[in-house]
């Protein structure tokens, strides 16, 4: 059961890191809200900025809250996450691409 004891140290995170993570996520939520409510940026630039904030937010949650960086080898969690995100992008982007001819028509 040694692994559990060492795990406490490694997997626990600290009050400090949780708080940093929380503050980051607040900031990363405020930025896109301000962009939209303040009417900054336009069109594609705005979409990219909003998505970028979302992706950074994802990283914050993964690193500070879900403790992904503290995983021991072999890093099955990380591997399955990368595969999952890859296939997620394939199905979302693929659907948009395939159905585009129809979206334009409407």
């Amino acid at each position, binding site marked *: 059961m040694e692994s559990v004891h060492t795990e406490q140290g490694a997997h626990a995170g600290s009050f400090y890191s949780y708080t940093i993570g929380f503050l980051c996520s607040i900031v990363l939520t405020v930025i896109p809200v301000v962009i939209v409510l303040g009417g900054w940026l336009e069109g594609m630039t705005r979409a990219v900025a909003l998505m970028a904030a979302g992706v950074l937010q994802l990283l914050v949650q993964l690193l500070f809250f879900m403790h992904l960086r503290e995983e021991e080898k072999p890093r099955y969690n990380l591997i399955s996450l990368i595969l999952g995100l890859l296939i997620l992008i394939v199905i979302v982007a693929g659907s*948009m691409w395939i159905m585009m001819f129809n979206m334009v028509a409407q």
Partner: protein
Amino acid sequence: MSSSQVTEASAHAHHDQHPDIEEMRLLGFWIYLMTDVMIFGTFFATYIVLKNSTNGGPDPANLFELGGVIASTFILLASSYTCGLAVLAMNKGRLRALLGWLAITALLGACFIGLEISEFAHLVNRGATMGTSAFLSAFYTLVGTHGLHVSLGLVWMVALMLQLAKRGITPVTKRKVQVISLFWHFLDVIWIFVFTVVYLMGVS
């Protein structure tokens, strides 16, 4: 024999060189989360493809009111933080603090659900229902599925608090807390993308 004793014993059994059972269970839950990513991915893809098919009904720009949604976003973010603090308390072996933080997390989650229900009720009152258009079907399905996950998480959290109160912090209850905290952070992540793709990009 309770399985907490079993876990304790299995660690000492010489021939069981397998990894810790509870850690193995955590991996399975993580993989489950990946499957949930695919479910949400399908709903996101459907929403994006169908969001312009408003069928003469309301479109995102004149339907959504950001005020309530921004509030619920911050509520969910805060609950993700308090859920983290619960795990922290658990790792320090402080049962009462753990129960307290879980209760606060559940309360924040309930507020989130309350806000979502009132938003849906408001929209339906304005005549924007599931059957109005493909866009609204996709909207209710995507946002509603997330809400359903949060609601199930609430029931689960209450059940877990009862178990914690009865059995204290054992390897098994500890794993269960870790699992639900993963689930909760995961739902937070999904919400961030719902918020961005549906609401923020919708009103732009």
